[in-house]
């Protein structure tokens, strides 16, 4: 079994450090802007919470029959931190075992978590935007209010921008490091 290179080992530490940021900064932000909200509204999604102008957004959503957002409705806020914690511990295990194969598997787990999280986020946005109260005061034919997964979208009078926040960028950075390290380790083992 091939051992990890030094850069490979360092990358494990770097990835763990980057992921620690998830507990200190928001992962994702959805910004809304409308004429009557000159300062804009912002919803910040953390690994274990949703913060920002959630109450105000909830207040607005009742016109179009969207369900209100409450922290307690998200099982993700429990299992995502747990998953990430386990993932970071696995990183330490990979470091101790010091085997390339471990690193490849670890990256695989990361990729799986990332894809699953995005899928879960999309699904939540889809439900949130499509499952409207049939008794809603305002109904626009053919209109759904699904926020963009990533990027800009116009929803009625609101402009909506969805993008990673600080911890999200750290997470993406961790992903880039992992993939780069896998390639690096792979090449090293082939040339040797």
């Amino acid at each position, binding site marked *: 079994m091939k051992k990890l290179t030094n850069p490979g080992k360092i990358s494990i530490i770097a990835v763990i450090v980057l992921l620690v940021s998830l507990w200190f900064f928001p992962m994702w932000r959805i910004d809304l802007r409308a004429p009557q909200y000159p300062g804009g509204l912002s919803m910040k999604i953390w690994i274990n919470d949703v913060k920002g102008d959630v*109450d*105000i957004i909830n*207040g607005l959503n*009742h*016109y179009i029959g969207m369900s209100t957002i409450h922290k307690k409705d998200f099982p993700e806020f429990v299992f995502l931190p747990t998953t990430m914690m386990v993932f970071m511990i696995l990183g330490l295990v990979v470091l101790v075992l010091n085997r390339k194969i471990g690193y490849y598997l670890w990256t695989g787990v990361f990729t799986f978590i990332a894809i699953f999280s995005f899928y879960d986020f999309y699904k939540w946005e889809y439900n949130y935007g499509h499952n409207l109260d049939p008794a809603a*005061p*305002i109904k626009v034919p053919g209109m759904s209010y699904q926020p963009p997964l990533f990027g800009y979208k116009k929803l009625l009078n609101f402009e909506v921008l969805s993008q990673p926040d600080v911890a999200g960028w750290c997470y993406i950075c961790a992903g880039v490091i992992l993939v780069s390290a896998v390639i690096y380790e792979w090449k090293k083992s082939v040339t040797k």
Partner: protein
Amino acid sequence: MKKTLITLCTVAAVATIHSCKMKTADSAVSGDAASKVYVAPGKYDEFYNFVSGGFSGNVTVYGLPSGRLLKTIPVFSVFPENGYGYSEETKAMLNTTNGKVDWDDQHHLELSQTNGKHDGRWLFANANNTPRVARIDLTNFRTQEILQIPNSAGNHSSPFCTENTEYIVAGTRFSVPMGDADVPISSFKKNFKSTASFISVDKNTGRMKIAFQIVLPGMNLDLSHAGKGPSHDWFFFSCYNTEQAYTMLEVNASQKDKDFIVAVNWKKAEEYAKSGKGHTLPASYAHNTFDENTQKASTVMEKDVLVLDPKDCPDMVYMIPCPKSPHGADVDPTGEYIVGSGKLAALIPVFSFDKIQAAIKNKTFEGDFYGIPVIKYEAALHGEVKKPGLGPLHTEFDGKGNAYTSMFLSSEVVKWRISDLQVLDRAPTYYSVGHIMIPGGDTREPYGKYLVAYNKITKDRYLPTGPELCQSAQLYDITGDKMQLLLDFPTTGEPHYGQGLPASMIKDKQVKFFDINKNHNEFVSMGEKNTKVVRNGNRVDVYMTAIRSHLTPDNIEGVFVGDDVYFHVTNLEQDWDIPHGFAVKNSSSVDLLIMPGETQTIKFTPVKQGIYPFYCTDFCSALHQEMSGYLRVSAKGANVPLKFGSGVTAPETAAK
């Protein structure tokens, strides 16, 4: 031909002479004035201008240089627009020893100071008619406290403050007997007194308290200002009617060539008060405070007041002769010069603080007034501004060694230099100017950019509106050698004095909404689930909530004619600028305007049976028109059970 030419020349000459002599008001503005006052949409004004509301009893807030009205702050008068003085929470703010007094005459304003400069914390306002002093918080632009002043009538020389807001003063315009004595008016000289009250202000909370009253001979105290810098320990009051007339004052109080500036050493007075030189006299006066926590105003009736008599307190009060019926008493930014404005005098006397001190030291007195030493006029005088105009009233300063005095009779503002007393410039006002205001112009550091003249008469300035016309303010640019008129703007009530400070000092401190978690109003409904209707005898308490776009409960039955129904409406919103209104059909008092996170209560006593719709009065959302409900009022003794709800359709059987 020649004849025609001569005739034409004559006509031209006469026309020219005519236009020179009779200058009209509309030609007074020069080219770039518009650009100097234009505040583009989306941009903010540079200064807040707080203007006294005169007989409206309110304070109004304008932006400068645009002159746009930003807010009316109700202080001494009930205000239907937002329920001030009508709601159960605010009623007590207007309590006095004469019951609830719903109106007053609001003359002067003063911003709190630290080290002689604005600190952007509080705005103080006086009530002239029922003597009171109010404190307004500059984070929420609301009246927080009102203190009644005993032994006073016409609280005119008020509410000016010392350099660190140690004290706010309240000086009597009309002399009256101490207490409630019943005496003949003709016993004026013997029984009538004027008082100068010193109200201490708590450094942290702003809470006011009458620390002591100085009792002075019967006369009319008019205006005042505190010393600064070297004259920090002193307060200067102007007075008139030292003739002590009590009838036909127009003539009888205008006989003497000189009245006085009353110089009070408040530090000495403070020492005397502490060392027990004063007498505690029984007095009764209301002290009203608004508790942010419980969101409720309450009244405490104070029992006595500490009075200092100059007879017992040497070196506390001196008189400085001042021609003739002085109105303004204004202290320049250095604190060295005190400008008296004899409203009937043809000159402006300027006194020197150094010279006053020297005269006191050397006892250069010309006698006494009821035992109070009168300093020799010449000994106190820095000099006189000769021929400044007619009817000097008030003086403000630009911080560059210049003074600006309003001239009531000649309707102009005159700029003069303090050092050599030379008149530098004059600008017409439209018309009959009272106070003038330079932002910071009565502090140690005037901002010196604009001057606002508050005018009494506005005929021909705006579109006519029947016999009753608005009052007016005029804005001048004072950055150059010549004053430049920039703008006229209408004002509410009769504006007397104003205060101005840079917007940047307070704009970011503004409260945007009240945190509902800190709402400790005893009738708050924390969420719609906690709404209810409770009957206790003939009192019915409705605990209601308002949120876009419904009221909960919105159906109430089982209320009877003659019940006292208290609607306690909590605005559940937690967003800036989302108040909700609340009114009931045929409401006997007024509506409410409830800020986000706040609870307000209105009392409604139905006199007839019927269905009474209630609704939100402030267009809050796309579904504002739907934000309503029904109160059913039944005849007394009817068999209708108490019932309330929201979103529940009543069973058919219950419908009769």
